[in-house]
Structure formats: C-alpha cells, structure tokens
C-alpha cells in the first residue's frame, strides 16, 4: 500500500468541511469545481453551494482532463488578410477541483509526462500550475472499475489535499504547501490523532476488496502479453462489433489526442484556431491531404488503442496508460472497449513466438525548451515558381530575419490563417539566411490556397520540426541517395548540405538516383545537371514512362531498374549509407534493391510521411505503432523500424 505516513494529516468534521467548501465558493478569484449529480450519473462542474458536492460518487462521465485539455479550446485568434496578426489570451481563473479520485490524479500525472516534456504545451502548463487538486478516497466503486488491479485506487502523490471519509469525519492528507495554505485560509481543522490516521490507512487498505472487476493477469505482464499477440485473431473478432464512435477515447482520462481546425467569422475578418479532442478509433484520424488513410481497417484501429495504453506509452514513459477507471466499459455500447476484459481474454491464449517491437528507444537528449509550440512565426513569400501542374516552388523568408536553423530532412508546418496548417518538408539545405525553400504539391485546402497566393503575401511557419538526418554518422561514407517522385524535394535539402563546399570533403562518393513519373514531372532538372558536374557525384534519372514525341534523353523505367546498373565491385557496399525518400509504395521495392547490393539494414535511412498535425508529438495523428513520426522521425534508420508492423503497410 502507499506510504503516506510522511505527510501531515489533519482532521475535519463534515460540517466544517461544508463550510470550507462554501468559503472556497465564495472567493471569486478562483473557480470552485466539484463532483455533482447529473441525473443518475456524476460530473465535475462549478459549485454554487457545498450541498451540491457528492463526495461519495462512483465515477464521473468525463474525467477532470476536460479542465486541462478542454473539449474545445481557442489556441489563438487571428485576423484574415495580409497582415500577420495573432492574438493569444489566457485569462482563465485558477481552478480548485474537489473530489478527484486517485486514479484520475494518477491519470493527470501521466498526462503531465506527455504535455510537459521538452516541448511544453503552455496552455496545459498554466492550467496545471494554477490548479489545486483536492482528491478524495473512493467511497463507492463502479462495477466497471478495476483500478485496484491497476494499483490506482489509492495514491500518495499528485494532490494538494486528499480527503478520506472515516465515518463521522474526514481526514485531510496534506500533499503540498499550496494545499496547506488553502486549509489555513479557509478551513477549520485540527491535527489528526493517531487513531484517525490509522482509520484512514485501514480504509485505503481495504478498498481493494470493494472492486468486483479484477485483472486475471498482473498489470506488469500487459506489455509482454501484447507484444506476443499482435496478430492474434482476437482483435478482428472483438472489433467486428465496434461502431467506430470513439466514445472510449472521449471518456478516457489517459487519452489526449487532439485535432486543430480554423474557424472564420462570417464577415471574413477574424477567426480562431480551435483545438478539440480527437480519437484514434475514427477513420479520418490518419487521413492526409492526398486522401490516403493509414490504419484504415477497424480491427487495426481497435488494436492500436490497447497497444498505445498497454505497450507504446509504457515503453516510453514506464507507466501503463490505463488507470482502470471503467469509463470506457460504461460508455461502449457493444461493450468491447474494456481493457480488463481484453487482457483477461488474451491471458487465456498461448503466448506466441512473435516478439514484435513497437517502439524505438531514443537517446534521451535533453532538447532545449522550445517555447510556444502552437503559435506560428510570421513569414513572407519571396518568390514562387510553377514547376509542374501540381507542384509549386516557394522561397520563404521569416519576418524576424532569423535563420530557420533547420537540419536536412526536417519539415515545417505552413500555416494560413482561416484555411489551416500543412506539414511541408524543407527543400533547401541549412543556411544562415532567413530564407528557405519549399516544394508544395497541391492536394488539399492549405496547399491549394498556397497556389493562389503571390510573392509579398504572408503566412505562418512553425518549425523546424522532426529529427532530420544525422549527418555526422554519414561522414567518411559513400552516399547512395534514392528519390522517387516528390521525394526529390526533401532529398534536395540533404544534397545541398552534402555538396556545400564546406561539407563536401566529409563524405566520399555520392550517387543520386531519381525516378519521376514523366519527363514534365521531373523537378530541379537544371540543378541536378549541375550536381552531376561535381567530381565524384553521379546522377541517374529515370522516368516511369515517356509519351510519344516527348523530349527525354535519360532512362525510362521504374526507379528500381537503376540499381542493377550499379557496379557492385565499384561500390563499397559496407561503407555506403543509403537514403530513400519517396511515396509509401516505393520503400519496399527500393529496400530490396539496396539489400541486393549488399547494403546493410543499419545503413539504410528512410523518411516516412504520416498525418503530421502538431509536429511536436502530442496530437497523436502521426503514430506508427508507438513511434511519433514528427518527433522520432520523419527520418528513420531502417534497422530500427523494419519490424514496426505499421511502418511499411
């Protein structure tokens, strides 16, 4: 059980507790929130009087996450038109939450790990810092809750005050100075007697016996159980009943994925960027501008939720991202969402040999606090050049005249207020100037709007985002760079870096392979010709097809036809690093070609694309199993992700 003996414990009568709550309510410098009845159920809501407070509730419909990550949140306001005008205001009053159960307290602490990492979410941070959590030990237990099995039914941290009903009185365990000060200011308490503290301990100890629902396998075994059963038929079978309503993620205290949309007023003058809860069970969760959906099958989405909670997040942070509150079990209409049921079901089956790896252990680099992660910086379009029917070249300069400071392979989120945001790879090499270059393909609202803009107009830039290429590890090696289709755009940022006079000597021979669909879809043709003139740089271009009468002197055929032409004896495959950037379908084939050439998996790098919305590993859309493409990628070492089932589907 929990060791709370180090904390000071006070005692309060029920009457004085009510007075305490009423005193809190009266002070309008903060908002007093407590658990109230709503019909037959309970919710957290603003209190008008202490008699509304129901401390003996079983579980609320929504967890207290709604106060820290609201259902609908205005991230910023903006004006439309050509001035870059962003307004942010955070005038929320500090909150006092009364009646938070231990499992919800623990869930908030888990959320902190995600939202208060090196790329802190400022809104969340401020709310958490301002809030005072007054927890309460469970008195009633919902028949769907299995918090005892998760050891989240009691807690000794995460609260400012913790109330325990010991019969005629409440003990108050003080968890922080804030809590202590609150009591001093508003409450009439005494120091608790030893017997009273003992009573509290006994209640906490005996709480586990009140739970009707229990895990049949210890929670420590969840991760291993999941790893062993990725392809188990249970996912297909259970998900058949799924209605794809995502109620499970909405009511979950440890689900915090979100979507961001722009709202514009009818006079087209002002707008807001709104953040709202999203759910991985929804089909469009992974939808990108081109219309592609990753994880389309419902059984995969259904499975993903359990893996995120039982394996991906535990691998990353060391805790199981499920606190056994039972809300999803209550909310799921066909009753398939309950993790306790799923784990108990799985525990019946033989462990298979399959040891899947769903997470990449990253070096724990302490990345500097990046500051505001949501607000874009102002930038101006310097130059635009049409490259093809659907691709346009942009030169963009940040208005503060500072360099973007990016690494090859990183991307930016291009923001057009009123339209939205889109992730675009940076196409130019790192440079000290404030300008950088992008190639935009017209697929959705943002990119279509970009096409209609003109030099001199403004847009917003967030970034640089993503990990970029680890160019240090490329030094002293030969480089074989394969770009398919639009992949040449991000590849160019790497090529420009390598071919830069300062850097060229660090690398050995360079071979650039580029395959486009047709001659008129070849990008950067002149520049590529220049690259080929550099010593020890070879370029091979090919097009999938060439129409009659079209002028093309290069090769024809898919990009894969280029590899057999590479002389193996001329190529020191052991000392060659290969990089591939192209559409999802290209990877599998090109990797085979590289392996045939003798290039080792650990020397192959890929750049993957998913739906990148926040760019900072929070909104959840870009996940490939347990990996955030926007944070741990988009550049990946093939050896690390080749066993990731969702990487090359």
């Amino acid at each position, binding site marked *: 059980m929990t060791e709370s003996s180090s904390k000071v414990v006070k005692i309060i009568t029920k009457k004085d507790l009510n007075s305490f709550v009423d005193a809190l309510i009266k002070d309008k410098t903060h908002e007093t929130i407590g658990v109230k009845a709503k019909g037959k*159920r309970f919710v957290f809501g603003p209190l008008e009087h202490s008699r509304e407070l129901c401390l003996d509730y079983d579980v609320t419909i929504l967890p207290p996450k709604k106060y820290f990550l609201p259902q609908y949140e205005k991230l910023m306001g903006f004006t439309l038109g050509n001035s870059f005008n962003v307004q942010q205001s955070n005038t929320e009053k500090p909150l006092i939450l009364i009646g938070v159960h231990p499992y919800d307290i623990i869930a908030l602490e888990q959320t902190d790990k995600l939202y208060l990492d090196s790329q802190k979410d400022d809104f969340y941070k401020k709310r958490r810092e301002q809030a005072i959590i007054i927890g309460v030990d469970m008195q009633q237990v919902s028949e769907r809750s299995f918090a005892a099995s998760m050891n989240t039914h009691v807690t000794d941290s995460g609260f400012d005050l913790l109330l325990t009903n010991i019969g005629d009185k409440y003990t108050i365990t003080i968890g922080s100075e804030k809590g202590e000060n609150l009591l001093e200011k508003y409450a009439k308490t005494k120091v608790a007697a030893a017997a009273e503290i003992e009573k509290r301990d006994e209640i906490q100890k005996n709480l586990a016996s009140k739970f009707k629902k229990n895990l049949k396998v210890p929670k420590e075994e969840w991760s291993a159980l999941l790893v062993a059963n990725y392809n188990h038929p249970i996912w297909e079978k259970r998900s058949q009943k799924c*209605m*794809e309503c*995502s109620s499970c993620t909405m009511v979950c205290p440890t689900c915090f994925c979100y979507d961001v949309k722009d709202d514009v*007023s*009818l006079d087209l003058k002002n707008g807001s960027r709104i953040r709202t809860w999203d*759910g991985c069970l929804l089909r469009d969760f992974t939808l990108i501008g081109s219309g592609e959906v990753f994880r389309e099958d419902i059984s995969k989405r259904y499975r993903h939720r359990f893996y995120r909670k039982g394996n991906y997040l535990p691998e990353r942070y060391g805790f199981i991202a499920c606190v056994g509150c039972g809300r999803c079990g209550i909310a799921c*209409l*066909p009753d398939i969402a309950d993790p306790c049921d799923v784990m108990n079901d799985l525990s019946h089956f033989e462990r298979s040999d399959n040891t899947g790896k769903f997470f990449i252990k990253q070096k724990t680099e302490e990345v500097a606090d990046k500051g505001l992660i949501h607000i874009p910086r102002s930038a101006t379009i310097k130059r635009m050049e049409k490259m093809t029917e659907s691709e346009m070249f942009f030169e963009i300069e940040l208005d503060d005249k500072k360099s973007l400071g990016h690494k090859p392979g990183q991307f930016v989120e291009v923001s057009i207020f009123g339209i939205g945001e889109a992730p675009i790879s940076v196409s130019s090499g790192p440079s000290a100037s404030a300008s950088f270059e992008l190639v935009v393909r017209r697929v959705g609202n943002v990119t279509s709007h970009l096409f209609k803009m003109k030099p001199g107009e403004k847009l917003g830039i967030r970034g640089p985002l993503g990990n970029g290429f680890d160019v240090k590890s490329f030094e002293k090696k030969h480089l074989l760079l394969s770009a398919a289709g639009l992949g040449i755009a991000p590849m160019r940022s790497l090529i420009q870096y390598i071919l830069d006079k300062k850097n060229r000597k660090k690398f050995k021979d360079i071979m650039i392979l580029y395959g486009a669909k047709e001659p008129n879809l070849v990008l950067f043709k002149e520049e590529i010709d220049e690259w080929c003139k550099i010593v020890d740089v070879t370029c091979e271009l090919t097009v999938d097809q060439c129409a009659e009468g079209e002028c093309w002197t290069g090769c024809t055929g898919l990009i894969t036809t280029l590899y057999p032409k590479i002389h193996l004896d001329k190529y020191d495959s052991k000392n060659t690093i290969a990089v591939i950037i192209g559409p999802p379908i290209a990877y599998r084939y090109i990797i085979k070609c590289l392996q045939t050439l003798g290039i080792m998996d650990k020397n192959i790098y890929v750049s993957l694309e998913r739906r990148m919305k926040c760019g900072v590993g929070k909104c959840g859309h870009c996940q490939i199993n347990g990996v955030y493409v926007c944070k741990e990628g988009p550049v990946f070492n093939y050896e690390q992700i080749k066993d990731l089932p969702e990487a090359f589907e």
Partner: protein
Amino acid sequence: MKPRVAFFDFSSCEGCQLQIANLEEEVLDLIKIVDVVSFREVMKEHSDDYDIAIIEGSIMRPMDEQRLRRIRNHAKILVAFGACATIGGVNKIRNQWPVKKVMKDVYGDVDVENNEFFKVSHTKAINEVVPVNYYIHGCPPNRDEIKHVITSLALGKKPEIPNYPVCVECKKNENVCLFELGKFCIGPITRAGCGAICPTNGSPCDGCRGILSKPDVECVMELLQRYDLTYEEMKSRCTIYNTGVFNPKDGMTLVRRGKNE
C-alpha cells in the same frame, strides 16, 4: 470578386431557408461577402447568373427534376441544403409504398391524371438527379455549419464536415447516454456536426444528418440485449430520416460498414 449565390427550394418545409434568416445580425455580414442574386423567399429580384446554387428540398415530380437540371447547368457549385435535399429527409418515408397507392389514398377518386402539378414520383434527394458538390446536413442544419460552409466557399476552400458519429460530440458535451435511460438513439451511426443537440436536450438522435455506417449484426444484437430495447424501436428510429438505407422488407440490411462519404 464576390461569389454570386442563389437560393432555391423544392419540396420542403422551408426551415432551412429560415435558418439563413435566423443568422440574425450576421445576415448583414453574409450579404457583404457574397452577392445574393436570388432568394425567392425574401427577395423579389432574380438572376440566372450565379456561381453557387444552394438547394433546399426533395424532388417529387418530373417538373421539379427539370427545374433542378436547369439550375445545375447555371451553377458552378451546387450545395444540397438540409436533410430533404441531402438524403431525402422525412419526405422519403412514403417511398415505402408504391406511388399509385399513396395517390389513391390521398386524392381518392378525383381525377388528377393529366394535371402537371400532381404528377408525383418517388421522393428523390438532390444527388439522385444531379451531381452535388457539397452538402449541408441536418433537419434543420446547424447555423454554425451553415456559416462554415458559406465562409469556406467564399474563401475558395473545401468545407470540413465531420466524418465521425454524433457520439463524439455528445460525449464532449458530457451528456448522460440516452441508452442508459432506456431510449434508442442512432447517434452512434449518424454523422456529427450538429453538436449532438437532440441528445443534449434529452431527445434521442433520429439520424437527420445521414447514416455513416451500418453496424454489424452482432453489435446490434449485443446493444439491444444490453439495454433491454426492442428491434421494433430500433427500426422505427432508423426509418424516420433514413428510409431506404435500411431495407424494411428483410429487417436491417446489416452490411459491414461502408466507405464514408
């Protein structure tokens, strides 16, 4: 250049047109960002020169089909406005019976054979007659969504309409689920975008924004059993706005979920 917009209505209750008037002060903003060149219900003027046609109502007669086709030819963008236009709405309920039977029951023996006005066929949604570019769902549509579609069209972007069920919005509103109160709600398979307004006001969702997917047999059976509801109640609720989606002849056509629109 402001887009030129024209409003039209066919067989409907005109509640959707009313929602435009219900924008109140914002109607004044509306007429600043678009040129309303035809809106029979509130304007005398009419012009056939429009970019965007916004259509309310279902199609009941050949003469209505003709009028609709003419509008489609004039317009670059055609928007189906409200449940009658997007999915047929309540007007489709009578499609359960052959037209002749309904005509006889209503008009009895009065001779309407040669009267153009009375030549009625089965109710059709707009997209059953002409291609539709965008949809504004609901009965009536949500005013915020109307504003979103109009501002999107004025900005030249594709409107972003939810492709997920009402449950998402209902849960965000922290409503007590109506199933827990013994009511059959078809929110789980109905398109969101209305803010779950009916469940929030204590009334089960009737599916006026259109069905997103058809759930599995086992799922439905589990649901009915878990909440002690009857098949009749479910069928009843599913056939107010979505007659034809579920075939009443052989019970629910329980097909594995279809692709979203």
